[in-house]
Structures are given as structure tokens and as C-alpha cells.
């Protein structure tokens, strides 16, 4: 049990909202080396502190916000990871969010923030270096995320501070609510927003003035400069620099044929030209925005110049927001789509799940299993932004019959509605999927079905990539900056930075074992909650309905594809055919503390 030499401060900020006190929890070098940080460390805390079949709404539920060891250093594109047990699916969930929030945690001298308990009245957490305190948030309760952000900055009297706040959706505990960081970036897909709302924690403001301890400064800086150079040189990123991920909307429509359309009925949507990256560049985008030290600057900000929403500044369209709230709803009205995207940000709700829910509702109306009477008289039609805007607002405030119904999410909605609506209730492990159709882009099936969060598009598109992404998410690196450009050079490029930073002597072998350990730990949590191979499946729409149009007409994700995927994946990680980690695997990865739980789960599954 030694204190870390570098890369970590060796302490985690522990906040108990029930008692209203803050403590320091030590982080040892051994634990840091085993789980790195971010999603890995969060997975360790979740598995070691929760018992099987944990109730996500319980008072001892916690949120772990973790930067990785590289955060706050010269390494480009570092993020922050929000890890918790999802109240939506009951499974482990982690969301990585860009911006400067993660770095600020490190500069304040912490390796993570661990928040548990429930407050009686609304509070917000102010962190200035070592000084952390809970402050009254009754004035900002009910405010949207942009206003709350401004109020926190004002109260901190520091314009250089960074914030993470929830909006009305989180306060009303919509199970797919998001945390909005620095106004435009969402830590979503994890239901962290709902959990924060449940804990009556409105937000976090943070500012630090320290530097991350580094063992060998010269060597580390040199390696970090090499890592940065990969991103500067990478030609593929020239497109992302210019178009952001919004440019992918056109590409996935015309080339990959994986742009989701009309609630996943097809992938052919030529009208994308009205709402895609080109249209945005012509009429909307004004600025490029980057995360720390990042040459890619994929985020675009723009303003609507005409019509009802004139003067509205919004971020996007990104590929996911433009897909879920654009093509999936057959939108042709660019301003309407941007207004929806901005509304989801402002109210603090996951735009991916929200888009999935809206598309499902519209198809229900189409097929006649839902009527306007069930939705307070609102009748959503494909491409009608006004009705969708009203439904988003109602959902976030859980208002009326429509709000109550839509805030249940696709899976529970279809259970309630019945009448065969399961056939188009597209979800994986109870969560809506993102904007890549796995029939056109078969690699994504790995990310959706095999990924531990379920329905997540960012977990790697093959067994090997998932292992790598376990590490990337624990280092809290951006996929664009740290994931893809370093692929061929990993682990070299990462280890060249990590070893001089932390004073380690990590080998390639240990690196790959750490990758597998992180994913296996996450899996063990899900296995205890009753997940096995039977749940690692795509929705049956992708298995039974071939693509009706487009360059990949007739493609379908077959049962053989699924079998192949399962076999390759479980073999890669050393799990049995049910998808449960074997005893030998757990022992070899030094995860002995999970043996009993997994043996017990194996008997039931």
C-alpha cells in the first residue's frame, strides 16, 4: 500500500450528501495501476461496494466522477468519466464527457469525486483546490442548464471555473436525464442526471491551481508531444476539423448506409441534405470549439438566422444528435431540429434516448396502437418539430399523461402499450441505441450488444477494440484523439506517457491484461445483476427486417453474425459460452474478490 509517485494525487474527494460533509479517501498506487482511473476505477468501486441486485435508487448509491492519470497534463484530448449504476437499466454505466471539467478536477488536486447519500434540500458542490463545500442551490433548482451554469460561476466568483449541472429533466428524475458540462457537452446515457436529481445535487463547480505530479518530466513531455503529433498529422481528421461529426450524416447515408431513419425502419434518407453537415456549414455554423490541447476541434457552434428560432445559439448537429433527432424523425426542418437539440441540452436530457423515444411514439401513432388522447392531445407526425418540442418539454417535466408515458423509455413504454409494439421498440438491455444502424455497419453490433453499458455506440467495434476502449475510457481519452490515431502504436504511445508520468514499468503484457481486467470487472457487475449471453443481443428488428433501400439493400444482421460475434468476444476475454467470466480468468486478472459473487450468479443464470 504505497502512495502514487506521479500521475495521481493519491486522494479522492468523498462527498456524503446525507450528512452534508466532505472527506478524503486515499487512492493507493496498486489500485491505480490495476484500474487506471475513470470508468475502470468506477467499475472497481461499483463491484466492491455494492452487493448483488443493488437498488440503484438506494441511499448508498454513488456517482463516481473520475479523470484519468493523463488528465491535466500535456496529453491532448482528455475527458472526464461519470460512472454509476444506471437507474434506467440497473446496469453499470459510464459516460465520458469532453471539455475542461476533468482536467480541472486534477488541477484542484483530486483523482476523482465520489458522491453518495441524499440531501434533504437542493445543494451544489463548490470545489476550489482542497476546499470543497456544499452550498445551497434552492435558487437554481428548476433553472435550465445554461442559467444554472451561469449562477454557479457567479457564486464562485471565478469566470475560469468549470461546471457540470443537471436541468429540469434530472430534477424530475427522468431516468434518461443527462449531466450537462460547460453548457454544451452532455454526460448522458448513464442516467447520472436522474441520480443527481434524486440526491438533490444541482451541480458541481470546480477550479484548481495545482499541477499533476510527474516523475520524469522531460521524458513525459517528449512522449506527450509525440502523441499530439499523431493527431496533428492524421489526415482523416481534416474532415472532422471542417465538418465535425455532423459531416458523417451525409457519409453514413450515401456510403456506409447506416444512417438510422424512421425509427430504424430504413437507412435511406436522401433528405439528409436539408439537415446534414453541409446545410449546417452553409446556414448555421459559426465557430469551432476544441477540448483541451486538441487540434481536432470537432464541436461546432452556430446560430439560427431566420424564422421562429432566430437568434438561437446551439451546438451541433453532431452525428448522434442529427441522427436521432433528425433523420430518425424524418426531419427536414433544420431550424426545428436544432431547436430540439438545444432544448434537450437546456433541459438536461439524453438526446439519444429522447430521439429513440420520440421515434417509437410516432411509429406507435402510425400503427394505431397509440392515439392523441394518450398524449394529452398531441399527435406527433414524422418531421413535425413543434409537436416534438412539446413532447420533449412534457417529458422533462414529467407533465401530464404524455410526460409520464414518454419518460418511461422505449422498453417500458412498449410493455405498457403492448399490442405488438415490442416489434419496433428498438433497445438493447433496456436502453435506446445510438445513430449507427448495425445492419449497414455490422461492427457497431459489437458496441451495442456486447458493450457493457448496452446500446452504447462508443465501446469499440470488435473484441480487440472493446478491450482497447476499456483502457481509453479509463484513461479518459477522447476516441478521436487517443483512440483511433494511436491504434497502431498502442500500447507504445500510451505506455511511453504513462510510465514516466507515474513512475511505473508497465509492459505491453500488463497493459493488455489491464484492458481485459477493466472490461471483465464491468461484466461481473452486470452478471451479478442477471445479465448473460441471452441479453447480449440486438433488437429483433435488425435480425428480421432487411434494409429495404439504399446501397446495402437486403442486408440484415443474421443469427450467424450474432453467433460469430458471441464466440469471438467471449473467447477474447476468457468468458464461458454464457458470457460469464470463468474462475481461471478472474484469478489470472487478479479479481479474486469477485469469485464468490460470480459463482453464485452462475447457478442462477
Amino acid at each position, binding site marked *: 500500500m504505497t502512495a502514487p509517485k506521479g500521475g495521481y494525487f493519491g486522494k479522492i474527494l468523498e462527498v456524503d450528501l446525507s450528512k452534508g460533509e466532505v472527506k478524503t479517501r486515499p487512492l493507493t498506487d496498486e489500485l491505480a495501476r490495476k484500474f487506471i482511473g475513470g470508468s475502470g476505477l468506477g467499475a472497481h468501486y461499483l463491484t466492491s461496494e455494492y452487493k448483488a441486485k443493488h437498488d440503484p435508487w438506494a441511499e448508498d448509491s454513488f456517482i463516481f466522477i473520475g479523470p484519468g492519470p493523463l488528465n*491535466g*497534463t*500535456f496529453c491532448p484530448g482528455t475527458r472526464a468519466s461519470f460512472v454509476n449504476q444506471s437507474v434506467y437499466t440497473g446496469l453499470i454505466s459510464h459516460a465520458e464527457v469532453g471539455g*475542461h471539467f476533468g482536467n480541472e478536477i486534477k*488541477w484542484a488536486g483530486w483523482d476523482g469525486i465520489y458522491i453518495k447519500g441524499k440531501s434533504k434540500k437542493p445543494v451544489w458542490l463548490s470545489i476550489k483546490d482542497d476546499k470543497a463545500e456544499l452550498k445551497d442551490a434552492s435558487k437554481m433548482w428548476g433553472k*435550465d442548464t*445554461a*442559467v444554472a*451554469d*451561469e449562477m454557479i460561476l457567479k457564486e464562485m466568483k471565478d*469566470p*475560469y471555473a468549470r461546471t457540470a449541472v443537471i436541468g429540469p429533466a434530472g430534477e424530475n428524475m427522468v431516468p434518461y436525464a443527462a449531466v450537462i458540462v*460547460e*453548457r*454544451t457537452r452532455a454526460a448522458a446515457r448513464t442516467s447520472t442526471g436522474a441520480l443527481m436529481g434524486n440526491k438533490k445535487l444541482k451541480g458541481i463547480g470546480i477550479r*484548481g*491551481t*495545482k*499541477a*499533476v505530479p*510527474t516523475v520524469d*518530466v522531460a521524458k513525459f*513531455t517528449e512522449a506527450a508531444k509525440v502523441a499530439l503529433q499523431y493527431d*496533428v498529422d492524421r489526415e482523416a481528421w*481534416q474532415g472532422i*476539423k*471542417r465538418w465535425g461529426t455532423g459531416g458523417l450524416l451525409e457519409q453514413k447515408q450515401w456510403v456506409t448506409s447506416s444512417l438510422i431513419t424512421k425509427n430504424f425502419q430504413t437507412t435511406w434518407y436522401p433528405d439528409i441534405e436539408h439537415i446534414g453537415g453541409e446545410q449546417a456549414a452553409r446556414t448555421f455554423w*459559426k*465557430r*469551432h*470549439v*476544441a*477540448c*483541451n*490541447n*486538441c*487540434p481536432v*476541434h470537432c464541436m461546432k*457552434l452556430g*446560430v439560427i*438566422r431566420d424564422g421562429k428560432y*432566430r*437568434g*438561437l*445559439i446551439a451546438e451541433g448537429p453532431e452525428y448522434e444528435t442529427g441522427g436521432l433527432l433528425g433523420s430518425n424523425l424524418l426531419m427536414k426542418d433544420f431550424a426545428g431540429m436544432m*431547436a430540439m437539440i*438545444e*432544448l434537450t441540452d*437546456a433541459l438536461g436530457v439524453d438526446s439519444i434516448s429522447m430521439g429513440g423515444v420520440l421515434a417509437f411514439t410516432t411509429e406507435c401513432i402510425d400503427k394505431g396502437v397509440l392515439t392523441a388522447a394518450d398524449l394529452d392531445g398531441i399527435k406527433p407526425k414524422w418531421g413535425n418539430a413543434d409537436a416534438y418540442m412539446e413532447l420533449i418539454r412534457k417529458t422533462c417535466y414529467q407533465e401530464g399523461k404524455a410526460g409520464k408515458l414518454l419518460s418511461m423509455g422505449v422498453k417500458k413504454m412498449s410493455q405498457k402499450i403492448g399490442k405488438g409494439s415490442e416489434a419496433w421498440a428498438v433497445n438493447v438491455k433496456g436502453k435506446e441505441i445510438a445513430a449507427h444502424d448495425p445492419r449497414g455497419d455490422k461492427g457497431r453490433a459489437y458496441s451495442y450488444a456486447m458493450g457493457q453499458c448496452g446500446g452504447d455506440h462508443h465501446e469499440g467495434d470488435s473484441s480487440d477494440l472493446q478491450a482497447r476502449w476499456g483502457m481509453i475510457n479509463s484513461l479518459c481519452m477522447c476516441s478521436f484523439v487517443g483512440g483511433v490515431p494511436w491504434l497502431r502504436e498502442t500500447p507504445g504511445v500510451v505506455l511511453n506517457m504513462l510510465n514516466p508520468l507515474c513512475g511505473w514499468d508497465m509492459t505491453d503484457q500488463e497493459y493488455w491484461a489491464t484492458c481485459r481486467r477493466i472490461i471483465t470487472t464491468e461484466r461481473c457487475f452486470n452478471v451479478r445483476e442477471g445479465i448473460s449471453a441471452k441479453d447480449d443481443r440486438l433488437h429483433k428488428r435488425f435480425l428480421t427486417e432487411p434494409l429495404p433501400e439504399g446501397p446495402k439493400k437486403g442486408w440484415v444482421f443474421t443469427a450467424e453474425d450474432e453467433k460469430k460475434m458471441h464466440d469471438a468476444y467471449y473467447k477474447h476475454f476468457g468468458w464461458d459460452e454464457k458470457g460469464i467470466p470463468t474462475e481461471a480468468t478472474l484469478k489470472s486478472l487478479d479479481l479474486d474478490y469477485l469469485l464468490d459473487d460470480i459463482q453464485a450468479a452462475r447457478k442462477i443464470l
Partner: protein
Amino acid sequence: MKEEIKIPESINKQTSRRGFLKGAVMTTGGAIALATIGGVKPKEVKAAEAPKVVQRYLFVERQNCTGCRACEYACNIKHEGVVRPSTARVHVYKHKGVVDVPVICWHCDDHPCIAACPTNPKSLTVDPKSNGIIVNEKTCLGEKCMKCAEACPAEYVRVHPDSGNPVMCDMCGGDPECVKACLQQSGKPQGPCLIANTLGFGVNLAYRNVKPVKAAEDMMDLLFYPSKGDRPKTGKSGKGR
């Protein structure tokens, strides 16, 4: 037989400002200059090696900033060895989550900070070679004074969290790291935002004399609300909805 097309000499002549200046320098050179006037084509003249320019001013094109803070990081690596933006000699201020404003030392010719410095001799001096500001850590009164910060029209001067003295830009001795980092990060479609002034036309007072918040508000108007009345009145946040 085709007639040979004669190109007028004036078209071939380089008429750029640089070429003009170069020619001007050459005339003082004597013999070679005479040769140029005599009709010898410029490329035949062996170009004199350009002297290394010392960059005396910083300039920031705020519209180009993406908020990546590469300038802060490069500054820290040069001066502190490790990244610690609270001590950086350049800051990036994010306004309402919408615009980023790099806050720099413009290296004013009138030096309001030095004029305001109460110590005798002055604790702030100008490096004659690079035009950078040097802080005398021994004589500086530090946090309890900070007259320089009050005097700075760009609200640039910050307190060092350890020493309590003001943090001043020394131009890295004439070759600023922040400028190089900005150039490396930029590319298509966004050009670099930090520029070191090689021509030496001085400080743009219209740019300098605005505080970061005002500069950010101006830039929001410029970028997002170019015509009058575009800016929504509702919503204190400025991100009207």
C-alpha cells in the same frame, strides 16, 4: 509562321510589397542595386539571407480561437515544465460557453503596468531585446499591491498562486512558444489565432483596450448576432430560447 508573343516586362515584375521593400533595400546596397536597375532579372540576384526577426508584440485574432488552450499548455511547458494553467502567461476565457477569448499581454508601448508600479526602482522592467516584461521577484510587493493588475487595460495580469507576484509575459526571449503551439494546432478551416507581430506595427489599441468580458460580448455580437435586434432579449443567459 507564328509570331512570337512578347510579354510586357511590367507583367513579369514582382509588384508585391515585399518585393518592393526588398528592392528598396537593394538600392542602398550599391553595385547590385545598380545592376537591378539596369534590367537584370531579380532571380539572378543572390537573395541576401533574411536576418532572424525578433518578435516584439503579440497579437490575437479572437475569432479564430477554438478554446483548446494549447497556448497555455505550451507556455507552462516552457516556464514551469509541467502543465499548470493557473500560472500560464496567457489565459483563455470561456464566455457563456459560447465564445473563447485569449487574454494576452499586448506588450504595450506605453506600459501602463510599469507606470503604475510603485517601487523604486521599478519591479517591472522591459527586456529591450524581446520587449518582454520581466518581474523582479525580490522587490515586487506582490499580492498586497497589484497596482499593475489594476492598471492593465486588458485585465491580463494575474497573481501567481505560490509566490503571490504578478505573472508577466516575457515573450520567451523573442520566440514565443504559445504562437508556435497555436500554429501547430490550427489548420483548415481555422487559422491560428495567436500571432507574433513580426512587422512591428505596434499594438492595436482597439483590440487591447477591451476587457475579456466586453471582448467576448462584442465577439458574440460579431459572430452570432451580426444585425441589430438579432440578440434575443429573453433569457439572461444570452443563449436565448
